[in-house]
């Protein structure tokens, strides 16, 4: 082998604390190294040209670049060596930036460590073999999971781009949180007026198949060829017959159930269509409250339904959808305000969440758009808003900012004044975060035009007294204690990962953070990609986002899917496991351990053997550490390569 080594300065990022020239010089002493140099920016055009030129001039057969993380530039350099005629796997990277220069200041120690890392990379490279990918065809259908505004946008853009789209929504209607909102900041336009048409477009688009009241049960396969099992939950109403007339809801005798769409501040019937603009506009029976299910007798809805759509014996149904890509757009849920016991959320009816307040403001809400407080239905005059409940609070393990609460609180203060001109709003805040186009102007309007009193400080406690809620807190700017007699207290509950998000992430095989939000592939450069090929993110499932951001991501994810599907064939990664059938004793241990079900049992001359399914294997290496025989090895990461790396490190 003829190895060339390139030590990158990364401007001063590396050179600042690593003597790259010395590292290059030391590399020349390592086995099979015939050329070594330092270079200003290995990834730049002249940097890559330098590598290509050296490969040609020095007849190099393998290349090591010591620079940044392979997450960033391994593909770049692989392409470069390929352009020079080498197999792209005859290349190794040593990370002397994140692992060296950025974490230590001692130039001599850093230089020595860099030499070690280069030596390790060389030992691995010496055991590399050329690998070539195989090609496979892709299924150009896409699944969007979650029908909030982000998922709707992604679905519509993909469908307009000519793709077949399967949209899976957990609730009986799409729309997500936006469907529950009254008006939207910063323009205060009506939420259903702008979302409604999009929802209708989904229903009418010939390329979109909607599975509402459904959840993803299991996902198999890989980019280009996923098989998704969708569980269509029993609605007890045959949706092919239901016309959404609502006759059942009028007659249903079980009327006092908490309405989830109205965030449980109003009642609903056991058979229910959540809101007038629901898409699909179909009824669902809640068997936990329906008298037919609970008491075994009733059957009223079945009698009144003009189309005979009621089916009490319906069961969950699993349908399998084959798709080539998946967009996760499962949004967020709200922090449970009862966890902040000082504020009395969940204990006092007049302490509610912002989303509940949206329902009180909404003309289609339980109060018909008249603000009436839950306890006695009176119109409140003093409304206190408390921001950051379950946000930016380390003690609640919610250190992050939920992003949109400052804005919607300002919106709600404005709307309160609109609804009740003689009302007074108070807003307790930590900081005002309004860094969007027209956003700061908007919060100012709430204060200046609508007279909302903004009080910077934390509320210590909220308690009832003589039909009022007493809100006690500090005004940190004035340095005084404040006490407000409120008629209604609205808590800006922070955003949390959607219920069940980690479980879905496991099925999708994507990472999620400590809080359950899905992880993007790169926080800046790959915001809608994940580390699983073919799985993309849109909207607040990745972290709290307002509507414009969610919609933007929906479109971005759609663009990624369309780009992926612009090819007819995809290449499979050859860094996968392979079975040496001479050694394999057919015990099948690898088959049961493989988390991706990538290994199958085959017969070879009458004996059982294991075989890796090339396109399914993700190269995780679990099987290789399981196989007692060492019969299964991960290409490009063989035991011998890893041992050589360890040996190289231990020698130095």
């Amino acid at each position: 082998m003829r190895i060339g080594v390139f030590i990158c300065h990364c401007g001063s990022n590396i050179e600042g604390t690593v003597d790259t020239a010395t590292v290059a010089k030391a590399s020349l002493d390592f086995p099979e190294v015939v050329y070594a140099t330092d270079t200003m920016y290995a990834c730049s055009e002249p940097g890559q040209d330098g590598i290509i030129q050296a490969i040609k001039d020095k007849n190099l057969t393998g290349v090591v670049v010591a620079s940044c993380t392979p997450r960033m530039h391994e593909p770049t350099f692989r392409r470069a060596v390929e352009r020079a005629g080498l197999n792209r796997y005859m290349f190794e990277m040593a990370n002397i930036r994140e692992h060296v220069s950025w974490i230590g200041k001692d130039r001599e120690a850093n230089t020595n460590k860099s030499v070690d890392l280069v030596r390790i990379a060389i030992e691995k490279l010496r055991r590399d073999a050329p690998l070539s990918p195989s090609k496979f065809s892709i299924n150009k259908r896409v699944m969007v999971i979650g029908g909030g505004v982000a998922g709707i946008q992604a679905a519509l853009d993909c469908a307009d781009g000519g793709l077949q789209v399967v949209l899976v929504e957990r609730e009986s209607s799409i729309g997500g949180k936006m469907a529950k909102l009254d008006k939207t900041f910063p323009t205060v336009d009506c939420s259903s007026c702008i979302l409604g048409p999009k929802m209708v477009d989904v229903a009418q688009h010939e390329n979109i198949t909607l599975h509402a009241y459904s959840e993803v049960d299991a996902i198999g396969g890989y980019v280009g060829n996923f098989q998704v099992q969708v569980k269509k939950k029993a609605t007890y109403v045959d949706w092919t017959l239901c016309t959404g007339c609502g006759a059942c809801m009028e007659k249903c005798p079980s009327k006092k159930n908490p309405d989830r769409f109205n965030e449980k501040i109003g009642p609903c019937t056991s058979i229910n269509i959540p809101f007038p603009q629901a898409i699909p506009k179909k009824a669902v029976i809640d068997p936990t409250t329906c008298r037919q299910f609970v008491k075994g007798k009733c059957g009223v809805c079945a009698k009144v339904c003009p189309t005979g759509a009621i089916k009490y014996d319906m069961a969950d149904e699993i349908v399998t959808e084959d798709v080539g890509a998946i967009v996760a757009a499962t949004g967020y849920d709200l922090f449970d305000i009862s966890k902040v016991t000082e504020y009395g959320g969940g204990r006092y009816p007049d302490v509610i969440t912002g989303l509940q307040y949206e329902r009180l403001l909404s003309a289609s809400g339980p109060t018909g758009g008249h603000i009436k407080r839950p306890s006695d239905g009176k119109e409140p005059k003093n409304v206190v808003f408390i921001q950051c409940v379950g946000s930016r609070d380390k003690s609640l393990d919610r250190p992050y900012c939920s992003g949109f609460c400052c804005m919607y609180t300002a919106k709600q203060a404005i709307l309160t004044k609109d609804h009740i001109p003689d009302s007074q709003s108070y807003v307790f805040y930590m900081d005002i975060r309004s860094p969007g186009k027209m956003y700061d102007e908007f919060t100012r309007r709430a204060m200046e035009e609508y007279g909302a009193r903004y009080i910077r400080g934390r509320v210590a406690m909220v308690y009832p007294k003589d039909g009022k809620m007493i809100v006690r807190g500090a005004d940190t700017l004035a340095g005084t204690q404040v006490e407000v007699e409120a008629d209604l207290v609205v808590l800006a509950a922070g955003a949390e990962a959607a219920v069940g998000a980690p479980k879905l992430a496991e099925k999708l095989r994507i990472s999620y953070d400590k809080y359950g939000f899905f992880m993007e592939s790169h926080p800046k450069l790959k915001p809608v990609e994940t580390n699983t090929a073919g799985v993309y993110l849109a909207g607040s499932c990745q972290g709290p986002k307002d509507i414009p951001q969610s919609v933007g991501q929906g479109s971005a994810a759609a663009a990624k899917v369309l780009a992926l599907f612009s090819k007819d064939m995809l290449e499979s990664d050859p860094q996968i496991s392979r079975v040496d059938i001479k050694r394999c004793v057919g015990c099948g241990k690898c088959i049961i351990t493989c988390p991706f079900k990538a290994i199958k049992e085959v017969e070879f001359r009458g004996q059982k053997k294991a075989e890796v399914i090339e396109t399914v294997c993700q190269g995780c290496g679990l099987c290789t550490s399981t196989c007692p025989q060492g019969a299964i090895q991960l290409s490009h990461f063989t035991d011998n390569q890893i041992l050589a790396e360890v040996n190289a490190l231990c020698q130095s």
Partner: protein
Amino acid sequence: MSRLEELKTRIKEALPGLECVIGWQKGYDPLHNTPLFMRTDADVDKLEWGPLNVHNPAVYLPTFTGKKVGVVVKGCDSRSVVELLQENLINRDNVVIFGMPCTGVIDLSKVKARLAGAGVSAGTVTAVTDDGKTVSVTAGGQTTAMPLAEVRADKCGRCQFPNAVLADAYVGDPIAPAAPAAAADADLAALDAMSVPERMAFWRYHMERCIRCYACRNACPMCVCRDHCIAQSREPHWLTQDDTATEKLMFQVVHALHLAGRCTECGECQRACPMDIPVLALKKHLNRTIRDLFDYQAGVDPQAIPPLLQFKLEEDNIKERSW
């Protein structure tokens, strides 16, 4: 008919359908029994049962792949058979298991020590008898009576499975375990009591004595890699042939790790060791960890999947995430 005779009858009945039945016979002197491969009725007549049946015949089963064989087992041996079944290394349809209740086998090292104490050499043994409670060894014309409880293998003192956990033909009535469920493990307790440097010194001392004969590996019924054992393999090249304590300890540690949650503590590794190196302790230590983490014991339930041979997103007793 004695139990042994009944067992022989059962074996003879089954023999025509089998390649052979593995058991024990008298060895080269009265103190040693050796493995027996019964192919004819005459072979079956040589079958022995008693405290000298120290070997674990399960070790031979994987070598008969594709053929139907019988095996006579003690309780501990039966767990090895079950573990082999659990791991698909043998096929249930191809093995017929014969069992009898076991009251323990001797530890030859302990017997030899007794004889030495009585001033006689183990090489001069002329007769061994036992009545289930006492083993009487005649050597150099002198008979030494040794209570079985004192010269039996350590594992027998802790044994929870004196009856075969799985058998096709079981002769005799099952007996109760001799030991309480959580019997103390003296060797582990001694190692636990050592400081880390002391423990390192302990193993270094023993590894320096190891002659790298691999008897421990060859005797182990769960060591199934044979020709591909990391001890010799170049691909992958885990170990060098350097005769150093480090390489030898590396082998023992790899062996023990490969046996974690698979080892049934039959003790064959340690019994086979010509240097009396306490290698079983390494496996017992890992098994203890497996028991604590996964509440699992190897070779008890043919249907159970060993914990390290499966992939679970969330382990019951390992909390990786706290929400």
